[in-house]
């Protein structure tokens, strides 16, 4: 990877500027890359966001604590559940509410099924970015099976609004565990097929190996987290390092890699999906079958949370996802800040890794970093 040190003179005829996005199949969500090319090689990359800015943080300062839980899920479309959990956990901490044990198990299962659904979409995305659209069809179909489970559990496929301050909205429907196990078996079989068709594919290997290498010195300097850091050999996972919900009761492995390129990141995520399936099976086996799933709550229409401040985080598919809340004793938030991993992965990291990359591999590089623009813009 070479950094461009000499000024780029566009009038020299040596360079051409190309915009990739905001509407482009190789861009994850709506953002754009302003690429300067010399031949096929990218010599400069500037990122542009704002296409999805809806001012969530400002909106939430003007809404009551209970109204906000319908807003937060929209901040990361493919993974709304993590927003629901983090907002609920932060409000509960500041308000001194302890959700019941059964709710903790249900929340954990919800988060792990969400991880599976999100990874399935990502796996299809990385395959499609390297020209293997068929795998995308397979994984999106299987994601839909997981969404069926969400529909059963929560009544909604995408924005579940299931994890609410104090607990969860509902118990599991009759026969859910059997149907969930069936879906897990199907996804496991699919992952076995993807292993053969994608990871052993010569074209995928040729293009993804060596692409977008994150060096160890970049990890902390750029704030790289999650699978992008784990693929570089950093054994960090909040579920194990700072356990929340019932993760300390589950048996799972923190998956790491070493090559730290697009291929390795895909391998790490593929193995994490198998770990996720293993975790959901344990939860289905060990979760309490009865008991309350919602704590006793104050009248939420007149809810005033005591003055305070906290930062709550969880390990989402892209790494550390966090909610920072500041309250002043009123019915409204003084400040809420949503910390999404894409903030650095899609901007500072992408701008650096794109330099020296072939234009044809930019889509694959971007997908390999697994970014969601809405969590950048909030």
């Amino acid at each position, binding site marked *: 990877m070479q950094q461009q040190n000499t000024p780029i003179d566009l009038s020299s005829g040596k360079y051409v500027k190309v915009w990739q996005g905001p509407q482009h199949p190789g861009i994850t969500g709506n953002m754009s890359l302003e690429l300067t090319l010399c031949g096929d090689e990218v010599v400069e990359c500037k990122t542009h*966001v*704002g296409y999805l*800015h809806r*001012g969530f*943080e*400002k*909106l939430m300062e*003007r809404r009551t604590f209970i109204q906000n839980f319908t807003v937060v899920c929209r901040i990361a479309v493919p993974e709304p559940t993590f927003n629901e959990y983090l907002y609920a956990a932060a409000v509960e*901490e500041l308000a001194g509410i302890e959700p019941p044990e059964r709710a903790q198990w249900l929340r954990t299962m919800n988060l792990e099924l969400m991880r599976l659904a999100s990874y399935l979409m990502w796996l299809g995305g990385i395959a499609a970015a390297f020209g293997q659209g068929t795998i995308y069809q397979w994984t999106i179909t299987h994601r839909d099976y997981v969404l069926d489970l969400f529909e059963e559990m929560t009544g909604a496929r995408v924005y579940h609004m299931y994890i609410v301050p104090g607990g969860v909205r509902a118990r599991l429907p009759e026969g859910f565990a059997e149907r969930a196990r069936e879906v897990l078996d199907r996804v496991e079989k699919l992952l076995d097929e993807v292993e053969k068709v994608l990871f052993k594919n010569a074209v995928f290997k040729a293009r993804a190996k060596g692409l977008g290498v994150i060096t160890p010195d*970049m990890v*902390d*300097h*750029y*704030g790289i987290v999650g699978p992008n850091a784990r693929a570089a050999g950093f054994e*960090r996972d909040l579920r194990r*390092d*700072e356990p929340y919900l019932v993760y300390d009761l589950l048996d799972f492995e923190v998956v790491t890699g070493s090559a730290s390129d697009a291929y390795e990141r895909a391998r790490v995520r593929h193995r994490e999906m198998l770990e996720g399936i293993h975790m959901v099976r344990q939860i289905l086996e060990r979760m309490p079958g009865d008991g309350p799933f919602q704590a006793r709550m104050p009248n939420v229409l007149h809810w005033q949370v005591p003055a*305070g*401040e*906290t*930062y709550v*985080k969880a390990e989402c598919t892209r790494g*550390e996802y*966090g909610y*920072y809340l*500041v309250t002043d004793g009123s019915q409204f938030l*003084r*400040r809420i*800040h949503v*910390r999404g991993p894409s*903030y*650095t992965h899609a*901007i*500072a990291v992408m701008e*650096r890794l794109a330099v020296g990359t072939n234009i044809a591999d930019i889509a694959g590089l971007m997908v390999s970093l697994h970014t969601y623009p809405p969590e950048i*813009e909030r």
Partner: protein
Amino acid sequence: MNPTTQALIDRLSAHFTLSEVREQKPGLLLLKVPRKDAVQFIRDLRDGENYTHLNFLTAIDYIEQGIFTLTYMLHNYANHQGIAVHVDIERERAEMDSIHKLWAQAATYQRELREMFGIRFPGSPGLDDDFCLEGWDQIPPMRKEFDTLAFSQERFHTREGRASEDPREHMRQIMYPTHSD
């Protein structure tokens, strides 16, 4: 407060003036430092105390007191401890030293804070480039005095034939059509 955290506070207090120190929960310490010491303090935390991860940088608007409080959230991966470093700056002269040389992603946070709160970080790369907003010429929108409703009413017009229902009245008419106060 556990002995490790207390020892850290003692070490830091030897060189800096700390205030409003409290432990929110195990693993999250909150404290405030004067603006003039802030960047050196953060640098020392990173280089001397292993707080190598910048979780985020953001601001809180305390319009009643005429200040912005900046929050630098730092994390130590070795002992899994976090510190929220607070720094007060005046709203009227909203300016702070840049930390873009400490972390690569800090420039993006500072660019956002310039756009959304109007806080300047001299020397930060691309500080005046648009972040989310294009050609914005109003009050920075995350400031408390920015009125979103007034902005919408001034900027957008109501289309003919469309009306908003008052939710309370609308539901009362549906559920209790014969009821009167």
